């Protein structure tokens, strides 16, 4: 009651002194003061209702009738036209909190205050027409100029070919829908609007439409980097930095769960005829002298803690594997891909209908300033990070020019899609005739 009276009085006073803006300020001041008096006067068993911000209008933005359909060549960023939308969906949530009842904690008692808080959240269903199809794919999406994280969102991309079928959401909402054949479009289902001030954000889309002939001719690619602990993991892996702090190991984009998935999506949309992927998997050699050289899987950090995947290769864990050397305080190489990440990637490639080549690779982790005898020059120190082809079995390499390493594959069981088992054993040999009997290490996959 006092709130009402004082609010009106405050508005009148404010209006007189400062005009309309003063009236609003005055109303606020009056209402606050009145509320305090109300609380003092009627302190027992009251109910307060609070309402969160609520939209007055659930209509969505207009779209232009008769706007031209763009035609994209290569890669372009477009904002598109809203071709279908429902009214915004409103989700009402009410929470209730009672304080001070029964005089707990010796606060006097008798005055129970129940606060009912109602919050409103909003969701949008909309389809955005982009350009003439067929396109390769849509990669990044920006909402209000910022990259939109697509993980957890339901978004369906139609490339605009002549075979595409109507969107299930539009069909379910309208009872029937065109397929918009020949039009590339995107459907957002229940897009949460809380991050955009409860309105549909201005969106733009990175569209890839390959038109060159070279892309059509690509049949096989080699996937790098070979030295990456989790770079091949299809699911997100994060590094724990401290309590409540983490950093992504393998996800630096917003439109896929991991970098490798984003790369494969882009690869297959740009070069649709790719059939085969060679996965480079790097292990580390420690010496140019074959009899001294150890070939081991390596890690870039002994202490790193990760979620979403734990590093392990050939039965070694982070504590027992080779630790790669440092240059200026940073690891000279990424680690060896975790065996599980390679298996998961193979399964992912199989689902995509791609054939796989395992491409074992050797990197020489010999830092500068080492005390290893150089078999080529007789120097007391081997050159820093030499080429792997310089490994030699001969302490006097100059006499018998050795060749590099031979990789032998043995396939003992076919990969299965669901759980690729250890199917390939890779053995490293020195190819110099005198010592080729010596397998250095096995890489089990």
């Amino acid at each position, binding site marked *: 009651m006092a709130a009402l009276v004082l609010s009106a009085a405050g508005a009148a006073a404010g209006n007189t002194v400062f005009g309309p803006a003063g009236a609003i300020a005055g109303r606020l001041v009056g209402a606050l003061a009145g509320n305090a008096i109300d609380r003092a006067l009627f302190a027992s068993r009251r109910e307060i209702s609070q309402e969160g911000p609520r939209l007055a209008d659930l209509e969505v933005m207009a779209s232009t009738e008769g706007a031209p359909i763009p035609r994209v060549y290569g890669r372009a960023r477009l904002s598109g036209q809203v071709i279908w939308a429902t009214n915004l*969906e409103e989700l009402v949530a009410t929470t209730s909190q009672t304080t001070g009842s029964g005089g707990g904690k010796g606060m006097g008692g008798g005055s129970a205050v129940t606060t009912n808080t109602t919050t409103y959240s909003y969701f949008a*269903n909309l389809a955005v027409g982009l350009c003439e199809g067929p396109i390769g794919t849509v990669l990044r999406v920006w909402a209000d100029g910022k990259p939109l994280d697509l993980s957890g969102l339901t978004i*369906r991309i139609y490339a605009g070919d002549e075979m*595409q*079928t*109507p*969107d*299930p*959401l539009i*069909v*379910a*909402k309208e*009872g029937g829908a065109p*397929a918009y054949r020949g039009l590339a479009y995107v459907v957002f289902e*229940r897009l949460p609007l809380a991050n955009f001030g409860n309105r549909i954000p201005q969106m733009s889309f990175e569209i890839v439409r390959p038109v060159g002939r070279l892309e059509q001719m690509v049949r096989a690619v080699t996937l790098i980097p070979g030295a990456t602990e989790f770079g091949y993991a299809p*699911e997100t892996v994060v590094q724990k930095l401290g309590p409540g702090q983490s950093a992504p190991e393998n996800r630096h984009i917003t439109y896929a769960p991991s970098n490798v998935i984003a790369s494969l999506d882009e690869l297959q949309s740009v070069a649709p005829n790719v059939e085969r992927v060679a996965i480079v998997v790097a292990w580390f050699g420690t010496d140019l002298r074959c009899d001294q050289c150890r070939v081991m899987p390596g890690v870039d950090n002994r202490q790193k803690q990760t979620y979403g995947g734990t590093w392990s290769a050939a039965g070694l864990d982070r504590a027992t594997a080779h630790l790669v050397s440092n240059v200026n305080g940073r690891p000279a190489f990424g680690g060896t891909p975790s065996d599980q990440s390679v298996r998961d990637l193979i399964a992912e490639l199989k689902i995509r209908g791609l054939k796989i080549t395992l491409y074992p690779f050797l990197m020489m982790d010999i830092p500068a300033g080492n005390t290893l005898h150089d078999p080529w020059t007789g120097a007391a120190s081997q050159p820093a990070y030499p080429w792997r082809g310089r490994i030699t079995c001969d302490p006097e390499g100059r006499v018998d020019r050795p060749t590099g390493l031979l990789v032998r594959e043995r396939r003992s069981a076919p990969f299965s899609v669901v759980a690729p088992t250890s199917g390939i054993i890779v053995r490293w040999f020195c190819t110099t005739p005198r010592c080729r009997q010596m397998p250095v290490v096995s890489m089990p996959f």
Partner: protein
Amino acid sequence: MSVLRQDIVAETRRWIGTPYRHQASLKGVGCDCLGLVRGIWRAVIGDEPERAPPYAPDWAEATGNESLAEAATRHLIATPLADIAPGDVLLFRWRANLPAKHAAIVTTSDLMVHAHDGAAVAEVAIAPWWRRRLAYAFKFPGVIR
């Protein structure tokens, strides 16, 4: 008891337009994706074999159990994904590491009927978006042709 696939499809299509209601199963009034399958079971087979447990809209995600697929295995006959035919029940999983939690009924070789969350029962194409998420397929017991 024998069941014809065309009878399942005909009954399924009678549900089109039923609004989406979580946990409901009443033709023309409201149903969710499981309610649709339950309603068709009642129409073509008979009383429901078990009472559906309570479940939340995001049910099974917290526990990670394949509750829906396990229940389907108890009462329906699993079929290979390559052999789906009209009248079969499809289960979908939204993400690779989550349990299957959506159901639909095949009506033609490339159409299905399902209850779309937040909308209604509708007949839609089994587009690549769905096929990528297809996890299980089942046929009703007693289906002869």
